[in-house]
């Protein structure tokens, strides 16, 4: 390896397609990036909801979503209509989240904070193997239906843009979920109580808020948001045991990029990562300069660089601690 060996790389970088050479492809890829990014954002939102209230990164988030999405697949097989399945899966996820908070998270609440991390890692292993045990007998990967708005293969034609119908559905549903959460947290008394619990548990308790119930609700909400993410991503990359593993790593990156205590940051971080990933793998920088193997490290390098400039993510608050 010497310095001259870099020259061909540089030359091919300059000759490779640039974003401004093919604007249509650029826009297409951007919108596709927004769609995958909103899925990352939804799962990241689940992580952030839990982190805000309990200071814990929930490693089991993705596997929980995978488990309930497989439940949804079974319901579709049993002949349930899509919308009924969608609602039922969200309900199951909420119940499961609340149940887990009550049974395994609460006993380690007073313990050192890393213990909760171990519990979520244990849950990760449990749900992954349960999913494998129940659904891995048949053929994998399984195909999962898209929303009634449109399928993965057909496209909507908007003149300058042709978009896959499912991507449009993903963006619409993500906006709806984000709006619902915004309204819940900012316009209802329950949301106020949850924010109070997240900010200062003792003070919230003194105001008469049942903080234990708020934490339980936080876990339920987080699992529900994750389940929506799981059901939206399953039609795109099929339902397999590793489906959510691929999503969860980017969701972690999204949550950290946006700041672990900022729900809007999670969505923005997710969309940023989605777009970056798509553009990097389509245009000059991606395939030529980094090569297909280095697309993932390049995306992570961006994350680390952002963290070096803003150590608590783009929108995270810097915690000031009194000694």
């Amino acid at each position: 390896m010497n310095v001259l060996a870099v020259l061909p790389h540089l030359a091919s970088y300059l000759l490779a397609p640039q974003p401004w050479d093919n604007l249509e492809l650029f826009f297409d890829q951007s919108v596709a990036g927004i769609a995958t990014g909103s899925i990352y954002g939804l799962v990241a939102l689940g992580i952030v909801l839990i982190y805000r209230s309990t200071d814990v990164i929930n490693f089991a988030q993705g596997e929980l979503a995978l488990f309930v999405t497989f439940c949804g697949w079974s319901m579709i097989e049993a002949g349930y209509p899509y919308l009924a399945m969608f609602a039922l899966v969200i309900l199951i996820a909420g119940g499961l989240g609340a149940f887990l908070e009550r049974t395994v998270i609460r006993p380690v609440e007073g313990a050192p904070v890393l213990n909760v991390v171990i519990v979520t890692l244990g849950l990760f292993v449990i749900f992954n193997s349960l999913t494998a045990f129940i659904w891995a007998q048949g053929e994998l990967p399984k195909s999962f239906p898209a929303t009634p708005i449109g399928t993965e293969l057909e496209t909507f034609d908007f003149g300058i843009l042709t978009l896959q119908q499912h991507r449009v559905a993903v963006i619409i549903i993500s906006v709806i979920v984000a709006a619902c959460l915004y309204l819940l947290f900012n316009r209802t008394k329950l949301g106020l109580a949850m924010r109070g619990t997240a900010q200062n548990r003792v003070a919230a308790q003194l105001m008469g808020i049942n903080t234990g119930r708020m934490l339980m609700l936080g876990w339920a909400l987080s699992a529900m948001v994750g389940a929506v993410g799981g059901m939206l991503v399953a039609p795109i990359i099929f339902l397999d045991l590793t489906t959510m593993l691929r999503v969860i790593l980017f969701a972690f990156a999204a949550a950290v990029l946006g700041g672990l205590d900022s729900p809007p940051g999670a969505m923005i971080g997710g969309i940023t990562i989605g777009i970056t990933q798509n553009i990097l793998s389509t245009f000059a920088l991606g395939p030529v300069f980094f090569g297909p193997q280095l697309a993932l490290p390049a995306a992570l390098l961006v994350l680390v660089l952002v963290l070096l400039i803003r150590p608590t993510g783009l929108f995270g608050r810097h915690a000031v601690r009194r000694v």
Partner: protein
Amino acid sequence: MLPGLEKFYEFLVLAALVGVLIRYTPVLPARWRVPVAVIAVLAVICYMPFTVGTFRTSQLTTITIWSIVAIGLNVLTGYNGQISLGHGAFVLIGAYTAAILTDSESQLGFFDGAQWPFWTAMIMSGLVAAVAGVAVGVPSLRLTGPYLAVATLSLMIALPSVLEKYDSVTGGAQGLHPRQPPVPGFLDGILERPEWFFFLAFVTAVIMAAIAWYVVRSRWGRAFVAIRDTEVAALAVGISVARYKVLAFTISAFFAGVAGSLVALASTGFVSPQTIGIVLSINYFTAIVIGGLGSIMGSIIGGFVVVLLPDLATDIGTALFGEQRGARLWPTIYGSILILVIIAMPYGVAGFLHRAAAVKPADIAGAISRTPRNALAYLADTRERLTWRWTERDGKRGDAP
């Protein structure tokens, strides 16, 4: 000795019993208990490779290598309070360094083409990983808690693809086949290959544990702990926080690098980007939390637990659900045991032992004598407890917290 228990586990129980008995019974004078207990346990473990068979011996080697990584990670996380989920990356760097140095064909003309003796390659692996540790530790100074955890995890995610990309050095996805050190002449005929590999790893682990023991009790170790407990106060008493944080990262990466060289030389004899995966990297972290943060003995126990627990979970699974289902359900049992252990022992196994040792016989007798009375009182109380719940729901006891 015990019915229904494999010889391997019998010896482990024996080692644990011997250690606990010598450490906690007043047979020896207090200052001799710890060293004698350590030597006795090590002696039992030394004897094991000769009786438990090849598979269990290589498993012991794996445990030993895990313990080295866990000790290093504990210096960083347990003593210095910096979380790293990406220690597998340093292990991988160490493994590749050892594989390249001991194989003349893959040395890229950097050196004179001669094969390095295995022990210099091992030290070099540690040093290369330590340099990587500095490179990671300096930018990590700005990050704390979960942000640091995700940043180090992303290092672990990225490294395998980087190794595959530069395949002229690393052999790409095919990996490298390092030259494993042969049994040295003076031990020929005494030790078989797996036993020699075990003792190589074992002696290294003992040396590394001794180094760690010395470090955490030195000026450095006290600085680490001070920074972990309160960074601002450490700064105020004149500790250079930045320097010691990077130092902790460096030491920790050195341990991981040496362990990595053992992965290459004494364990699989094969190194590829998939040798250390993301899950394994996170499991190093699991090992130290389960074993006990801020404890060298805890790290070693953690190594035993994380390597042997999958086996044990499979045994439990087959006992509970039958042969086929048990083999497929073992991760569920493994995860459940992890959760139960961490709920029952919030400060890890080492913390549990430490607290159990402080219990006096009188306390136990008192607890036993109080149990029936407490149980009766609890049962008698049941009705009132239930009614209390209901009245609370009706809002009649609104003043209760």
